[in-house]
């Protein structure tokens, strides 16, 4: 196996006295697609938020694309440039149009000229099939459209890794598919993806590996066929029994 693009070693984190991440070890190869699942409060969101430094871990090491996340000033910035993130509540900036949402970071962070940033933005909007909404404000778009804009916004920074934090949980059921389709296309393009989701269908068809977390620990991680067909742990079986349709 080649050098992993993400490497977590012995990561621990506490919220106050609550131990959210316990001795987490995880390594992700470039191009790998990983689905993280587990009951609510199991630490899966916190885990991926540590990977781009939105949460600080207290013990252990996180190395992303050769850069270790430390207190050094540049490290978080360098990591964030390689890592895009999509949130559950999509978090578009409501005072900017869809296009301006996409060009903000390229012009501010990468210092791209406006024209180039806009060209890049339109290309990404085309990619998620939403180009015609470029000049609308987020408030004028449906949830699914907003989430696709959010995906395009993250892609504009041309990241090597994409993190998805429950990207479909806040959507109305009829909009889930359009977002999953956009993620599927991305996966087929070879992007490294970490996806926290309850969409087991997505895990089954897209993931290279499923990581199951409970109470801050990684309980087991397997290829989807094995994970769904032959779960090893009692807690995994419990969880699957609750989320899988009978």
């Amino acid at each position, binding site marked *: 196996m080649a050098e992993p693009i993400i490497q977590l070693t012995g990561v621990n984190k506490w919220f106050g006295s609550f131990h959210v991440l316990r001795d987490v070890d995880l390594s992700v190869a470039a191009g790998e697609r990983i689905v993280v699942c587990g009951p609510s409060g199991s630490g899966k969101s916190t885990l991926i938020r540590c990977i781009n430094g939105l949460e600080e871990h207290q013990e252990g090491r996180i190395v992303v694309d050769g850069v270790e996340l430390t207190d050094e000033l540049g490290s978080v*910035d360098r990591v964030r440039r390689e890592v*895009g*993130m999509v*949130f559950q509540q999509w978090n578009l*900036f409501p005072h900017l149009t869809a296009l301006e949402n996409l060009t*903000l970071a390229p012009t501010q*962070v990468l210092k791209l000229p406006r024209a180039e940033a806009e060209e890049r933005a339109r290309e990404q909007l085309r990619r998620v099939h939403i180009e015609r909404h470029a000049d609308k404000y987020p*408030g004028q778009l449906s949830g699914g459209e907003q989430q696709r804009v959010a995906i395009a916004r*993250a892609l504009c*920074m041309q990241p090597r890794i994409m993190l998805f934090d429950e990207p479909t949980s806040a959507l109305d059921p009829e909009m889930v598919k359009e977002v999953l389709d956009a993620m599927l296309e991305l996966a087929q393009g070879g992007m490294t993806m970490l996806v926290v989701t309850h969409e087991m269908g997505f895990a089954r068809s897209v993931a290279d590996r499923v990581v199951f977390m409970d109470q801050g620990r990684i309980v087991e991680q397997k290829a989807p066929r094995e994970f769904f067909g032959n779960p090893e742990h009692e807690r995994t079986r419990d969880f699957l029994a609750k989320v899988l349709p009978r």
Partner: protein
Amino acid sequence: MAAPSAAGPSAPAGVARPPPPRPGGARAWLRASLFGSPSSAAATLLLLAGLAWLLPRALDWLLFRAVFRADYEACRALEYTGACWGFVAEKHRLVLFGRYPWGEHWRPLLATLILVATLALSGHPRAWRRGLLAVWAVALAAFVLLMRGGVLGLSRVESGSWGGLPLTIILTVVAMAASLPLGIGLALGRRSRLPLLRAVSTLYIELVRGVPLITVLFVASFLFPLLLPAGLRLDALGRVALGMTLFQAAYMAEVVRAGLQALPRGQGEAAAALGLSTWQAQRRVILPQALLLVIPNFVNSLLSTFLDTSLVTVVSIYDLTGALRLALGDPLWRNFFLEGYLFVAAIYFTCCLAMSRYSRWLEGRLSSGRRR
């Protein structure tokens, strides 16, 4: 509930149609809102009786028996049975412009009109762009030029002789405008990750909000001359304006902080995840939204600052309130203080009512703009 037949024979079931007319119309509504229940009816009768007693007397005094000419003898002859608006006719220029030289009153008048027009212009969301700052710079320069003079053949009038309405308005505008950047700084400081900065900002905000404005005005007029080095020495008006700014900044900080707190955390996180630095995130993402959110509160603070300026009369600045007291210093007209206070109160009231109506309009407009 209406019977299905009321829909008429032509309307097929399930098709949207206008609602049936409300029973009764305006008269029934009036009856319900005045005599809806026995206790409500009793209250209405009682209040009507009170009004019937009061209104004719008030109108008599205010209008029918009032003297409108600046005629002292006629006013005296009334023996307080009617209002002496003659006081206003006689003294309105003194009240409006204070001790500004009599022959030059067109200057404060014009200066006031310029400020009011600029304020009115700034009121419409469509005017909120960068050019507005330039308009304000020009308006303020014109104000100072007109009031102070000394150039363009205008005689020089020191700020000690300024007074009345222009003073009230300029104090309000300066205190609001200067306290906004200070307030933003304090609000950000109070939410900073640096404990010392947070402590200093919090201490300042809570300290200033804890004491009455008068204390701050005392500091301005008694302590600033002692504390500030000679190069920074300000005249009385400048000191009071600085004091009001420092006072207002603490309140402004809390207004801004409310807006910052109202933003979902995800906004800052999304900006960080995109790689924006803290400053870029504040400037491009957080502050534009937070400030837009608190614009109605901002107008409310404008209103309370406007009212607060009346306190400067305590440290001998002749704003609108102070100028009225100046006018009442005339022993001949002193007895008609009620008319004087009504006149000035009406000015304040009209301005404030306009501002609060405007704030409500703006709130509706902004909140409807945010949603789809």
